């Protein structure tokens, strides 16, 4: 962005530069946004990235591909299992390892639980940004149940490393099934409460409706995916449009809205939780018996020369892994396309001329996870 120094010096133009972040509560991490303000209106915005850069892609070039699995969880700490899923799927595609049926079901169930967990955290944190403290307590109460369920099967609470090439590391038991079913009933019974407490609230509606409008054209120009794109009226969800794993076996809808403002993506995410519950329910009903790891996974996983791609639907949009191999077990290059990075890039255009308080609201609607942007 051209921060015109002459304009800033001119006393007739009442413009000044404000730093939002890197330590700002509403940027959810170390994102810095340079704002050029005129009064209370943000005229120019410039996101400054890189505070949390850890060279994940470069690390991948230096060790066997299998060993990169824990790193995937650290990129998006809220959708760790989904990032695991994409990477495991990539290596399975590259090496032609077949995943047992039961493992695929477990992957889908845990991934969807992870997605709900991510949406619940976003829900609480977003409303916290907007000044409502109570909803995050309710959302965390529900989220805690998911963390307990996942902790029991994966062993960790946030940065899971549960999926392996060829399956999952541990089988689920009856306790998992019963507690997941209990959770589904619990969350379903809580939705009306959320709607009454938050969605119908007049203050929330005033702050979200008509703020940060996106149309499908802008979305395709910036490569925006996920709930933001669906909020703009495009029903693009990889689970439906390009079904990976076993998502084609389940009956679920892709919620869309038409307006593309913050309220639209808010409602899309809210309804997605219900759809995820539907997927989990169906998967639990038809859970097959059998092994959870492929019989033959070589200790040294040699990837045949060539390039491979694997895309999954992360909570924030489309996640892609692109791997180029030269025939060894260490990738020649691994490119990760993370949704938040593309979603963030729309900020300068979306927020131009907005009130500063609306910038917070629009940025919250992007559901940014900074480590995923910087990775």
């Amino acid at each position, binding site marked *: 962005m051209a921060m015109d120094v002459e304009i800033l010096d001119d006393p007739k133009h009442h413009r000044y530069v404000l730093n939002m972040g890197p330590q700002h509560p509403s940027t959810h991490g170390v994102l810095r946004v340079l704002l050029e303000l005129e009064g209370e209106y943000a005229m120019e915005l410039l996101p400054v990235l890189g505070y949390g850069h850890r060279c994940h892609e470069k690390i991948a070039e230096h060790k066997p591909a299998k060993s990169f699995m824990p790193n995937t969880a650290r990129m998006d700490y809220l959708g760790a299992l989904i990032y695991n899923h994409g990477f495991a799927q990539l290596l399975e595609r590259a090496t032609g390892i077949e995943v047992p049926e039961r493992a695929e079901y477990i992957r889908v169930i845990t991934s969807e639980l992870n997605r709900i967990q991510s949406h619940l955290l976003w829900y609480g944190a977003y409303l916290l940004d907007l000044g409502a403290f109570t909803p995050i307590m309710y959302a965390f109460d529900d989220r805690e149940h998911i963390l307990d369920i996942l902790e029991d099967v994966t062993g960790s609470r946030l*940065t899971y490393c549960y999926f392996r090439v060829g399956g999952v590391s541990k089988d689920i038991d009856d306790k998992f099934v019963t507690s997941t079913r209990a959770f589904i009933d619990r969350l379903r019974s809580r939705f009306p409460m959320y709607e009454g407490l938050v969605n119908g609230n007049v203050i929330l509606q005033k702050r979200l409706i008509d703020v940060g409008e996106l149309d499908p054209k802008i979305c395709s120009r910036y490569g925006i995916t996920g709930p933001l794109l669906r909020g703009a009226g495009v029903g693009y969800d990889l689970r439906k449009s390009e079904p990976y794993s076993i998502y084609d076996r389940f009956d679920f809808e892709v919620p869309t809205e038409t307006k593309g403002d913050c309220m639209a993506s808010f409602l899309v995410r809210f309804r997605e939780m219900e759809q995820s519950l539907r997927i989990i329910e169906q998967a639990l009903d038809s859970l097959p018996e059998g092994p959870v790891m492929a019989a033959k996974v070589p200790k040294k996983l040699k990837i045949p020369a060539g390039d491979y791609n694997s895309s999954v639907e992360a909570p924030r949009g489309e996640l892609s892994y692109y791997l180029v191999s030269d025939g060894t077990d260490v990738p020649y290059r691994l490119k990760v396309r993370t949704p938040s990075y593309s979603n963030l890039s729309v900020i300068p255009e979306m927020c131009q001329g907005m009130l500063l308080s609306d910038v917070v609201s629009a940025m919250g609607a992007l559901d940014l996870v900074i480590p995923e942007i910087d990775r």
Partner: protein
Amino acid sequence: MKSYFSELFTGGWSLIVGLKITLKALFTPIVTVQYPREKSVITPNYRGHIDLVKFEDTGTHKCITCGSCMRDCPSDCIVVDGEKREGVKGKFCTVFTLDFAKCSLCGACVEVCPTKTLDYSDEYELAGFARGDFQYDLLKRVEERE
């Protein structure tokens, strides 16, 4: 004018609905835990840092110093070394350290261990004041354990 009042009414009503919900929550059981005064139960499947298992039949661990865990570790945080000793079949483990500051708890070492002598510990209060606090000597830990 009419719309002004209807907006006022719907807005006011939405606030009352919300307040009713929070009022109801006031009478629901407490879900928080007063840590550290009380602690919640940790699942037995919790994956803490690794520890050597003390087998009852031998009274010690069964590490054969094969180094599989060391090689499979994505972060190079395990150091294992051993020496040949008389009367002991194979190698005798003399060094087994874990640099927990580097460990990402992925579990690759536990899965690869041929003698199943590695397992996850259930400790979770692991804060330290210096980098050296995270250098765990697992051989010492297994001896000190009851």
